[in-house]
């Protein structure tokens, strides 16, 4: 007998717990690639060129795999080799970069490699987290509105990428709709957290990025500020709660320079040492404060330097500013941290306190020192003049008269002066920029034995007044200026601005006015909006952008502990622990409420609405008196059974309810315009009948 043999036995498959592999053709990968490349572009200054190149490679590889030009990922061995090589390369170049930039470059590098290698779910998640972290780091360098928008879009793209990863077959439209909604829901909660979670002071010293300093330099050779005056970049903005000073008195002192070598002025090295010494001893300089004052806030742009501009004799205001700003002996405000990003501080300026200050011997010596040699013509001229006018004030007036009367001119294009620059300026060219005038004046005063120093900073600024917001002044780099401070026994430090004598427009109206004839205002950037102020539309646009940027800086970037506390006070009044606890409780419940609100529709979706609800209510009411519908019975059949069982008080309203329900739920709906009014009518009628039915049923109950 031949039995046919069958193979029943089957090998059982053993599955191991391998990391879950991912599909190669998921749009999420393309999104990640796009995010990485856009991010690298936004940090083109910070990311090393060859790492950017690696990012491009990774993106190309990913895209090739996605569009199926290429089937295989680069092998693990290749990638490991690449990783080792590039880490070595990074170590080599990171030496000069410092910690922060080094870390960011390392992260970008790691992301690029991960993008090339991504095979499993875990890889994907790691890449997502690193990219999100990188985005956060991006905010260290870019804080403008436009960049914030770019980064927000990138963040949303990451969320969409996550969505694609978990629901690969949804279309892009569906995906963005779902996740956009989710993000919209998250946004108010995030904002609430931001506004109301306590802002903490820095927990520890953080590494700073080494980047080129911008703005004023610590050393100027006359003519340097001319370079700065070609820039329309913002320097800082000052907000005046109650009235702003007029244009001519807006001298924003920023750097005091006391060391002159015959050509250039710079911050005196001895002064720097003195400051370091005092700082280590915690001995802050306390100027004598008296007289009228003015309070204002300043938001300074990132300069990578510590100098902070302020008017006249200024002292930091408020606990935060006081703890972060050092008052220097030359009446200067210096931030303890270099300004890596926008920095907001509050200042109180005493307009007339200068005469009360004392001049120490140390200061006098510092401000009288002149190089022994050089500028011989000036030296002899001053000697002659001094013998003519031995009195300090008269001498100074004579000096100023010379500037006013000898045909000096103000220009943004001074000719170069290499040998004995002061001589050349005073007696030959007689045309120069503010630093030429200031330098010549200060040097002359010192030669005459009057303590004098050069102060650089900004003069003027664009005032913006609006009804509903405090006045603010935008000061741009082209407002950079230099002037002189001289010491007289009677009046103390006095400000002298020789430029004002030559080009009063510069002081009263600003550089734009002063340079109208010469046409050299922002000559290097012909398309700058600041240059196109003659065209009304452009000027308005420029002012509007400035406004937006100001508010952004002030309210978003500048939201700090102080503002937060003001907010708390506005909400709960006095800040007692109980009230704060209550506030915390309130926040939590508001967030919970928001979450509930967002998902109420989802939960209600399962429930019924409109006519059906009334009908079901009616069924429920009937079942309460022990008459329930068999779960499979249709509404009309049930109506018939009800009609057989009950008296008219019950069966009539129920029949009406059934009819309305059937009509609204099963019948063809008429045209859309009628619909709303009709539904309302149906709802009203059903309500009535339901009430009648319940009344009828109440009599049935024992």
């Amino acid at each position, binding site marked *: 007998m031949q039995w046919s043999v069958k193979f029943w036995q089957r090998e059982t498959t053993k599955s191991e717990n391998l990391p879950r592999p991912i599909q190669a053709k998921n749009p999420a990968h393309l999104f990640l690639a796009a995010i990485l490349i856009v991010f690298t572009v936004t940090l083109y200054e910070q990311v090393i060129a060859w790492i950017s190149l690696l990012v491009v490679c990774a993106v190309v590889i990913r895209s090739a795999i996605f569009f199926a030009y290429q089937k295989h990922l680069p092998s693990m061995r290749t990638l490991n080799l690449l990783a080792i090589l590039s880490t070595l390369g990074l170590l080599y170049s990171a030496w000069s970069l410092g910690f922060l930039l080094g870390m960011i470059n390392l992260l970008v590098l790691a992301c690029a490699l991960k993008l090339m290698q991504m095979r499993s779910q875990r890889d994907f998640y790691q890449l997502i987290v690193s990219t999100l972290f990188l985005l956060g780091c991006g905010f260290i360098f870019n804080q403008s509105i436009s960049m914030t928008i770019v980064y927000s879009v990138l963040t949303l793209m990451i969320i969409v990428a996550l969505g694609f990863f978990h629901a690969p077959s949804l279309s892009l439209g569906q995906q963005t709709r779902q996740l956009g909604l989710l993000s919209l829901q998250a946004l108010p909660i995030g904002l609430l957290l931001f506004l109301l979670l306590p802002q903490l002071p820095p927990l520890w010293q953080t590494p700073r990025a080494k980047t080129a300093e911008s703005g004023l330099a610590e050393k100027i050779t006359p003519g340097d500020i001319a370079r700065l005056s070609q820039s329309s970049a913002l320097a800082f903005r000052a907000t005046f709660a109650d009235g702003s000073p007029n244009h001519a008195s807006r001298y924003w002192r920023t750097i005091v320079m006391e060391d002159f070598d015959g050509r250039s002025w710079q911050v005196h090295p001895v002064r720097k040492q003195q400051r370091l010494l005092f700082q280590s001893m915690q001995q802050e300089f306390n100027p004598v404060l008296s007289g009228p004052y003015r309070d204002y806030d300043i938001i300074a742009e990132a300069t990578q330097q510590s100098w902070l501009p302020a008017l006249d004799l200024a002292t930091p205001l408020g606990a935060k500013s006081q703890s972060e700003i050092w008052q220097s002996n030359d009446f200067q405000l210096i931030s303890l941290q270099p300004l890596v990003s926008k920095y907001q501080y509050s200042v109180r300026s005493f307009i007339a306190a200068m005469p009360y200050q004392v001049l120490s011997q140390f200061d006098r010596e510092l401000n009288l020192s002149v190089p022994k040699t050089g500028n011989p013509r000036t030296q002899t001229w001053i000697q002659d003049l001094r013998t003519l006018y031995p009195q300090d004030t008269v001498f100074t007036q004579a000096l100023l008269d010379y500037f006013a009367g000898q045909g000096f001119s103000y220009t943004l294009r001074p000719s170069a002066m290499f040998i004995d620059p002061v001589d050349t300026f005073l007696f030959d060219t007689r045309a120069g920029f503010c630093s030429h005038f200031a330098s010549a004046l200060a040097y002359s005063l010192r030669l005459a034995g009057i303590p004098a120093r050069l102060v650089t900073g900004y003069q003027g600024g664009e005032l913006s007044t609006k009804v509903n917001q405090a006045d603010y002044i935008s000061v741009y780099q082209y407002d950079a200026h230099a002037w002189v401070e001289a010491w007289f026994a009677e009046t103390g430090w006095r400000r002298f601005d020789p430029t004002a004598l030559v080009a009063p427009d510069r002081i009263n109206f600003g550089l734009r006015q002063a340079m109208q004839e010469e046409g050299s205002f922002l000559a290097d950037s012909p398309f700058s909006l600041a240059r196109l102020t003659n065209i009304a539309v452009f000027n308005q646009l420029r002012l509007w952008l400035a406004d937006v940027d100001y508010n952004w800086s002030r309210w978003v970037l500048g939201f700090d502990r102080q503002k937060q506390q003001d907010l708390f006070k506005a909400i709960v009044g006095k800040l007692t622990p109980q009230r704060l606890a209550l506030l915390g409780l309130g926040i939590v419940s508001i967030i919970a409420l928001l979450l509930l609100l967002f998902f109420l529709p989802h939960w209600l979706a399962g429930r*019924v609405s409109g006519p*059906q609800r009334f009908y*079901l209510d009616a069924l429920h009411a009937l079942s309460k008196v022990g008459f329930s519908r*068999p*779960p*499979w*019975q*249709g*509404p*009309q*059949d049930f109506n018939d059974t009800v009609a057989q069982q009950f008296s008219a008080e019950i069966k009539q309203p129920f029949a009406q309810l059934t009819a309305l329900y*059937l009509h609204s*739920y*099963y*019948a*063809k709906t008429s045209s859309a315009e009628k619909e709303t009014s009709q539904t309302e009518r149906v709802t009203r009628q059903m309500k009535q009948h339901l009430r009648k039915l319940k009344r009828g049923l109440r009599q049935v109950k024992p």
Partner: protein
Amino acid sequence: MFAQLNSPLQVEAMTQALLEQAIAQSCRALIGKQQQIKLALTCLLANGHLLIEDLPGMGKTTLSHSIAKVLGMQYARIQFTSDLLPADMLGISIFDNQQQQFHFHPGPIFSQLVLADEINRASPKTQSALLEAMEERQVSMDGQTRALPSPFFVIGTQNPLHQAGTYPLPESQLDRFLMRIQLGYPDKEAEKAMLQQPVNGDKLILETVMSCEQFIKAQQEAMQVHASEAVLNYIVRLVTFSRESQQFANPLSPRASKALLSAARGWAFINKRDYVLPEDIQAILPAVAEHRLRSASTDIAAQGSLSKILLEAVDPLVN
């Protein structure tokens, strides 16, 4: 405007009145079987074929005959026997000596309403020829395709399976009939009324109530009956239940769900409604679904009540 809006409704009402008359007329011939007659008409309205399954002498032939008469359809009856050949039914081409060419003599199937009597007596070959004609609504013979008249309905009658000498229709073919109804014995009253009926000569004379064109129009109107989303959901839930439940070996196919919907529309139309209610589906479900379902258990007793199981498992109101 008002008249315009009303006119289709009036036409509809007219057709519905005609149908009511047709039912009344048929009831005269088949006393006490109003439900079955309505189902049969519903089936025709839904443009489907009808299978009547019952013992001999229950009035299967009378039913089909009276429907044909009332609706004014051209009627043919084919008595299926085991030796019936496809050609006997479809027709045959005969060589005409005078004209020296083949002449097609159409068979009885070229009628608007065909009664295929005792369909399970015919050989499978003839059965399949009939079922093919039912499905395609055309006949292919000698390389030529001939369309069947329109409307074209087949009312098949079948003896229950346990009768001797039958070839039961395969399950796959049963699906082609939109409905299967059983006539059953009349109740006492009806039977008495039937006996009391005066006999005019040999046959009861029925009036023709509507023309073929009117009936086609009625069909079109019936398929315009509104089926709300709730109704569609109910059908889907019924069909899905038959697929998910372990109680049915043969679940309902998508064709069956289409059949359910069109039959429900027809039923609603006959009941003078322009929208479908769950009750409509419940009314036609036994006729439409019973012959398509097969019980998973071998217990014969369960076979008869499958559609009941299905109906009672699904709540029409829950969404």
